[in-house]
């Protein structure tokens, strides 16, 4: 018997007696359908609500952000060009896959936000429902927001919504999963692609969500997720000239003005949330307030088309 084999035999009884060493996950960025580390080689330690160390998350850089914008731009034509029904099905598919991983998300949300198991479960369940709610909007938007305009001349004239383009989403800081889903789903349902800055202090559920996205028919580049420090990344996102709109919900209060100043440089559409502590206290479980067609409309352009009527 070769020595190696004997070693294994010798080791086995001892291993069975000790507790199994868990395989830890590396939390990475999600860009263009891939999971790169930050090009900067940086990471930061993420702690749970109880102060315990949970994991290292990638500390995204300006370059990571630019790569993410580029892949979002590249994905726009394809995603925007899908039929509304198709986009709706893709969003629904995200809900389907989330449903199968409820336990995992419940554990991560509980650890990140310091919630009880039941409260965390409610956050996860509602996140799933929110995808479903927005999925249903995909093929109804133009019927609710569009118009046929009775112009005072022999013209057919109609107005319908189109996606704005690439949207930067600064996700809510406090609500690591439900808040993020509530801001991202209304952006992508209409055909926008996005670059999301996940919660700075609670980024892990968002990274796990990206693993769901990659397996749920969301084309690579439609949703790109960057983790890292907001104070470092938000100004670059706000100033990027190939970003058409920015959701500033999670922007630190003292950066809001400079973000809006930078955003106007290329006429970014700016969506604002409540400010400061109000933003952190926002009740994402309240369906009446936390899921709105206006949040879809905030990232739409209205296009009006004229054509003569005649023989």
């Amino acid at each position, binding site marked *: 018997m070769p020595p190696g084999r004997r070693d294994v035999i010798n080791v086995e009884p001892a291993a069975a007696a000790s507790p199994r060493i868990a395989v830890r996950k590396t939390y990475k960025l999600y860009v263009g359908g891939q999971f790169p580390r930050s090009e900067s080689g940086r990471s930061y330690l993420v702690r749970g609500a109880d102060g315990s160390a949970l994991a290292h998350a990638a500390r995204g850089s300006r370059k990571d952000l630019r790569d993410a914008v580029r892949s979002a731009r590249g994905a726009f034509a394809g995603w925007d060009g899908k039929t509304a029904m198709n986009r709706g099905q893709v969003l629904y598919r995200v809900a389907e896959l989330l449903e199968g991983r409820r336990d995992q998300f419940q554990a991560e949300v509980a650890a990140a936000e310091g919630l009880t198991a039941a409260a965390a479960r409610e956050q996860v369940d509602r996140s799933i429902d929110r995808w479903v709610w927005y999925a249903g909007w995909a093929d109804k938007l133009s019927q609710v927001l569009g*118009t046929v*305009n*009775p*112009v*005072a*001349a*022999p*013209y057919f*004239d109609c*107005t319908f919504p189109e996606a*704005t383009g690439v949207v930067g989403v600064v996700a809510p800081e406090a609500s690591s999963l439900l808040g993020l889903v509530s801001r991202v789903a209304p952006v992508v349902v209409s055909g926008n692609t996005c670059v999301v800055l996940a919660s700075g202090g609670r980024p892990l559920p968002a990274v796990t969500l990206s693993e769901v996205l990659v397996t749920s028919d969301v084309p690579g580049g439609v949703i790109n997720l960057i983790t890292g420090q907001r104070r470092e990344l938000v100004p670059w996102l706000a100033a990027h000239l190939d970003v*058409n709109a920015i959701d500033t919900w999670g922007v630190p209060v003292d950066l*809001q*003005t*400079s*973000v*809006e*100043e930078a*955003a*106007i*440089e*290329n*006429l970014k*559409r700016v969506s*604002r*949330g*409540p400010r400061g502590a*109000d933003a952190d206290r*926002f009740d994402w479980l309240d369906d009446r*307030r936390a899921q*709105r067609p*206006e949040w879809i409309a905030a990232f739409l*352009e*209205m*296009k*009006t*088309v*004229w*054509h*003569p*009527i*005649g*023989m």
Partner: protein
Amino acid sequence: MLSRRVVSASGTTQGPLSAAVPGGLNATRPSVAPLATMNRSTPPAAVTRASDAAGSSGSVSQTWSGGIGLPAQALRRPAAQLPGFRDRGRPDARTPGRPDAQRRIPGSSAASARRHVTQRSPAVSPGPCQPGCTLSRMAERTRAKRPAAGALTTRPRSDTVGRGTASPSSWALGEGQATPWEYAPAPESRDVLTLQARYGLFIGGKEVAPRSGQWFTTLDPATEEPLAEVAKAGPEDVEQAVTAARRAFRRDWGRLPGRERAKYLFRIARILQERSREFAVAETLDNGKPIKETRDVDVPLAAAHFWYYAGWADKLEYAFPGRSPRPLGVAAQIIPWNFPLLMLAWKIAPALAAGNTVVLKPASSTPLSAMLFADVCRQADLPPGVVNIITGPGEIGMALVTHPDVDKVAFTGSTAVGKAIGRAIAGTGKALTLELGGKAANIVFDDAPLDQAIEGVVNGIFFNQGEVCCAGSRLLVQESIADLFTERLKDRLSTLRVGDPMDKNTDVGAINNPAQLAKINELIQVGVDEGAELYQPACELPSRGWFVRPTLFTNVSQSSRIAQEEIFGPVLSVLTFRTPDEAIEKANNTPYGLSAGVWTEKGSRILMMTKRLRAGVIWANTFNRFDPTSPFGGYKESGFGREGGVHGMHAYLDLGEGF
């Protein structure tokens, strides 16, 4: 515009927008207008020339040599016998083989000069009119008439960049002649308008002298003569106006039921209709745009906006089902000089319908129609402070939008100023809508209805002297018809009447202000310097006033400044494309995204282009149409928010997003 002129021959002049009424140009458009039929009877000589031309532009040849399929007798029917067509002169064929009148600009290559020769359109015999031809086709025949004896003598001004280049050689003009026709002056009467020597600020329902104690003069761009003195507001006046607006919002307007607000707006619409000619005259004098445009477009549309939004005032819960719309408060509104009254209406009508009060600042070079509107507010017994109007320079506008008691800012104007406003109010939480610049592409495919396309392209860029944010300033024409199309465009340009805005026959009036004129002339010079080929008709310009000739540039590169920057003047850049993809690529290749035009008879292509063009307004087989029910506004750096339609209401309401 061509149709307008023809109609005017029979006594009723029409503006570009009124051409949209039933029986207008587009309504009577034939379903297919291939090249063979668009141009009249084709006598043998012309056919020969067409065949010649076919050698250089292949795809044109078949259509040109194709027959028309009408009985010879019909072809020869004298135009004068057709109803609605008044013959202006003896029909005559164009003179073939005339020397090319195109002036080569300095720096153009020998190759481009050669191109001109091959580029000339096949000679077209005007011939007599056919039964059932469209207005524009009839007009085309009119254009080809031999000049009357003693026609207008032209003396092109030498101080303008790019003197008039040439008249179409088909006109066979005598020496010194610019156009074949004589037009008798048709001046609009000024009697209807009595201007005050001075206009104060309109604050709290009263005309008040500015606390600044300063005044400025507003000039007539066509004569450079003063029209009236206008108050130059200072910071104290801004304070007073915002205070008046806030008080009115708290006490009167904000509490008034929608049905009562509606009736005030209906009143305003009615008074504007009743005083329409007075407003048209005031607007033309102050702005320099042709009277037929103010009379047929600006003023009726302004009244229509008040009419449309009046009806919304008590129906807001139906406009936004499931929401409880509330007014925002005090709206600060800044409008430009290109459509002073119309922009005022676009701003004030939805703001008041939603229950806001407003402080409006008109452009400093066009304050008069706003001051007349103040009088309309008084006549309508609008509660004091609901509408406040302050006049003055740009700094006053900035003081207004940054005032802490302003809740909503709406601005129409240049992209640079729009960005400055955005920066100034960043972080304040004020609602903002911006309607900024544009560099619209007008895309003409080879299967387009060419007569209509020519008219649409001309209307697209020369309407309001091109001082239109959504002007079709870039013509993208498919390569296979580019030469023909450009040649016909030049012909058409030569028939535009440039001059006294108060003359009812004028197509292109005065540029609003000398700074704008200088900018236009500068960019024309840039176009020449960058190697584009200039064409300007040899029309006579008045000796006084701020005028510029309708200008067309060919051989324009995509990166040229005249293809990228908003000129805001009557300057058209012609570019070409081969495939739809290339057209879309070029059309979308600017930071702007306000409007675009598509000309083709193929429905599926229109819809595909409509989908892929990144612009807020797409005109298909038409251009520059506006209506209060139709939302207007830009993509990208042309701004955000919409004006017009129910979407325009949204810009003045809080639907609960304020948390």
